[in-house]
């Protein structure tokens, strides 16, 4: 973000962002897109809780409620949590490994726009009046029977967004394998980079099956196939397997980067090296591996038979071991440290008890016979919100406060940050703790209302109050962001003063080429090592100042994704309108033209001249 960019007109700025392949701008756009969908998903959550405030409530109708739960789950997982984490991965990971951009900047932009168009496609269903209503799991007997275009929006929207996810995952993998600075060996990579690496590997293996599954669903619903129609020889259980083969690793795709974020925060704000780094790396890889072995624990009640259930039960419990290793290593990181309770640290400290509670209920559900009782009851609702809100969302908020100064050059208010935390944290436990008991008391999940006289009233009332508190907390965060941006007090390279990893050795925000000189990495927590040895900049260059090769921006990814978006509407309305088929073909044509343009046009990037880099250096007083 050079000073030249700020003098441009509004239109030019928008065009600059639309065509940007800079990992930092793409990261910020992922973050903004994700936060937008997070707000949508949050509003859906509030409506769900308000409907369940009292028995026999009629705030929303039965059909609308199913649409709300479906869109809440789908939005939060695929369009909010994952893209927000992608935002941080995009922005921070290349900085942490000392790279100037990701390996495939063009693909990075393509992934972003596919996510945005996929997300918009899915949410446009609200305006068309046909909203997905078969749950985020979209079990096919119901999804095939679902009337209107709701589940078509689900299948096509997720297909487009899922393509973007896969692209992003591959990109991160290649970046981490190929673009590490000299000296940055695998076992010197910061924990957040490691978890990004493993989560990306999970994406690589988990999303292709889901892509196939979504194509099958699309063909069943829109083109007369019968993959999931048992009366025609299809099978609905196959969908459940396909879904959970993606769906279970998906939760690790979310939680592993969250673990990475907390690992960074614990060690920075305890001023101490991460305890048992190599055990942490090993545990991360092991969790990723075991994550693929346990999908059928979502299907204990499907009737797979005792042998399958027993195997998946034991495999599921086994995951508790590496996860426990992580928890204890975090505890030993702060043990003997010098703990400063900043807002990010507060989230990290709140995370430990919350996530442990979510984790242990997961092990309980791993006991298959017990799961026969807990499955699809409110207990499971409590469990997965404990891991996803208590793990992933707390990590997202922590990262937002922690990396905000790096990304935007200004510090979020610590005071308001703590207010956010207390509202959100207390609200969270108030909402979900009691839901464990609702499950024990026999309340099934996904019910749009409940009768009086079943002993569930008070608990549901408390739960809704908690949800409202979470909404208050989030609102304070938004206010915090607005005030901070308006005040715009600039910060230095290392505003937390205890930064340990390479992102804290560059200006906040970093210049568009990140590093004037590629850094030399001398160990784990390289910036900390440099600082301890008296090098205040925290940075030793590995090369003289030379011309820097950078990629060109491009509008092509935008049009490629737009083509798929248009084709999606064509596919959906093909059967019932005369224009559907034409739109389908035109949309695909647009994508193909954009692809061929990319293929025939040589784009070799450009060089930032040495003189320009030196000029930048000088204007900042010679420091990095």
């Amino acid at each position, binding site marked *: 973000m050079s000073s030249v960019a700020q003098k441009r007109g509004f239109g030019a700025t928008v065009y600059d962002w639309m065509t940007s392949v800079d990992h930092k701008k793409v990261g910020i756009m992922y973050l903004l897109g994700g936060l937008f969908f997070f707000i949508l998903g949050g509003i859906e959550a509030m409506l769900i809780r308000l409907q369940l405030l009292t028995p026999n409530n009629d705030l929303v109708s039965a*059909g609308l409620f199913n649409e709300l739960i479906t869109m809440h789950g789908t939005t939060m997982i695929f369009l909010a949590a994952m893209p927000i984490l992608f935002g941080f991965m995009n922005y921070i990971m290349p900085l942490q490994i000392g790279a100037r951009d990701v390996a495939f900047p063009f693909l990075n932009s393509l992934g972003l726009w596919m996510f945005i168009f996929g997300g918009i496609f899915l949410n446009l269903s609200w305006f068309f009046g046909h909203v997905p209503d078969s749950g985020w799991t979209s079990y096919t007997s119901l999804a095939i029977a679902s009337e209107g275009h709701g589940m078509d929006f689900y299948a096509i929207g997720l297909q487009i967004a899922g393509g973007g996810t896969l692209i992003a995952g591959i990109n991160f993998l290649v970046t981490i394998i190929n673009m590490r600075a000299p000296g940055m060996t695998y076992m010197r990579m910061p924990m957040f980079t490691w978890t990004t690496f493993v989560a990306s590997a999970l994406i690589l293996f988990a999303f292709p099956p889901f892509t196939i599954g979504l194509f099958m669903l699309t063909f069943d619903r829109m083109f007369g196939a019968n993959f999931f129609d048992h009366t025609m020889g299809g099978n609905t259980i196959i969908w459940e397997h396909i879904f959970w083969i993606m769906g279970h690793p998906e939760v690790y795709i979310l939680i592993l980067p969250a673990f990475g974020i907390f690992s960074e925060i614990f060690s920075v704000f305890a001023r101490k090296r991460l305890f048992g780094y190599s055990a942490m790396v090993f545990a991360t890889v092991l969790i990723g591996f075991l994550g693929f072995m346990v999908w059928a624990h979502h299907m204990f009640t499907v009737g797979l038979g005792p042998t399958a259930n027993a195997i998946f039960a034991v495999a599921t419990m086994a995951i508790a071991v590496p996860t*426990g290793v992580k928890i204890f290593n975090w505890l030993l990181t*702060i043990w003997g440290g*010098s703990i400063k309770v900043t807002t990010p640290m507060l989230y990290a400290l709140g995370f430990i008890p919350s996530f442990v509670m979510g984790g242990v209920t997961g092990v309980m559900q791993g006991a298959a016979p017990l799961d*026969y009782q807990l499955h699809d009851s409110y207990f499971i609702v409590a469990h997965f919100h404990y891991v996803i809100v208590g793990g992933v969302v707390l990590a997202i908020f922590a990262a937002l406060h922690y990396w905000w100064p790096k990304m935007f050059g200004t510090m979020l208010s610590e005071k308001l940050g703590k207010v956010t935390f207390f509202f959100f944290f207390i609200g969270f436990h108030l909402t979900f703790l009691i839901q464990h008991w609702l499950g024990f008391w*026999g309340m099934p999940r996904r019910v749009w209302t409940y009768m009086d006289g079943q002993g569930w009233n008070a608990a549901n009332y408390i739960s809704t109050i908690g949800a409202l508190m979470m909404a208050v907390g989030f609102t304070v965060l938004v206010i915090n962001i607005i005030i901070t941006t308006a005040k715009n007090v600039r910060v230095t390279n290392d505003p937390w003063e205890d930064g340990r990893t390479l992102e804290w050795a560059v200006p906040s925000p970093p210049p568009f080429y990140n590093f004037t000189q590629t850094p030399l990495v001398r160990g784990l927590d390289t910036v900390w090592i440099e600082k301890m040895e008296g090098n205040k900049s925290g940075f030793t260059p590995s090369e003289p100042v030379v011309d820097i090769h950078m990629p060109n921006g491009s509008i092509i990814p935008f049009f490629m994704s737009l083509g798929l978006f248009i084709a999606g509407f064509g596919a959906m309305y093909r059967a019932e309108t005369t224009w559907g088929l034409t739109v389908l073909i035109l949309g695909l044509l647009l994508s193909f033209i954009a692809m061929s343009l990319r293929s025939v046009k040589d784009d070799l990037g450009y060089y930032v001249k040495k003189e320009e880099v030196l000029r930048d250096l000088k204007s900042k007083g010679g420091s990095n």
Partner: protein
Amino acid sequence: MMKGLKKWRLFSLLAALTVFLAGCGQEELSTLLPAGEVGRDQFNLLMLTSAIMLLVIFVVVTIYVISLIRFRRSKLGEDHIPEQVEGSHTLELIWTIIPIILVLIMAVPSVYYTYKLGDVSAMDAVDEDGNAENLVVDVTAKLYWWEFEYPDLGIVTAQELVVPMDEKVYFNLIAADVKHSFWIPAVGGKLDTNVENVNKFYLVFEKDSKDLKDGVFYGKCAELCGPSHALMDFKVKTMPRAEFDNWVTAMQATGDRVADTAVSQGEELFAQSCIGCHAVSAVGESGAAGPNLATFGDRNRVAGYMDHTEEDLKNWITDTQKYKPGNTMPSFTQFSDEELDAIAAYLMGLSVEK
């Protein structure tokens, strides 16, 4: 702020404890008050895993609280640089091996009960005369109601399952339209009713439902199945074996209910408008378009969840979509008030227990 944190922790602990002590739920639908062997096995597993997990939470919270108190920068001074410890192999081993042991302690009973609860080998057993030794109930889940057929006894009922106490009752489960899940929380865990295959399991009922608040256990559909998923309740009546045998005999006797000439206006109207979907004789086979109404007068609810009154019955008949959106029964608006009264009275009179 630390004080606030600690205070809140104490408060939450107290709150959790209160909830725990207050809350075992209601006898007719709580998994914490198991009314049968299967539910009790699962409850024991719950207690075992909870105990181990509370132990884990206790250890974590202890280390956590101590480090939070001891290692604060405000105490140690702004300039304190802690020792940069790399790790400890001994500790890593300890917190790998102990969890493995804890997991094994949970894994063994889990596997044992998985096989125990999955054992339906006695289902098809017959005695010397070729009669089934065990009671088998075929359950068909439909948009939004439940059909219960007793194949060996030749009777069908709906919405209210009637079973004998203190013996294994075996179930064949299937769905007729979309996937549902059969769950009687107080008696035992759920099993899905898939569309393409029959799932089998057993439950044991050990408590007489007469002693319960409504005289029935509550059953639930536990898989999202459409707009009225929340309303797809059923009820379960348990009784001693002798009483159950009487009930079966009475049910088998309803075969001659289908008279040539109607004796009341209600019966006549029913025969004109309703009999196409709803049988009033319990003798026959499953697969009807609507719930069998042979025992309607004995039931606890109208449409699975509404009060069992003539008033609610008439509301239901005249506007089915209002009360159970997405269900397959059309609304009957053509009846006059008088005709509705007659139908309601007729239906309420359908009983085998009175």
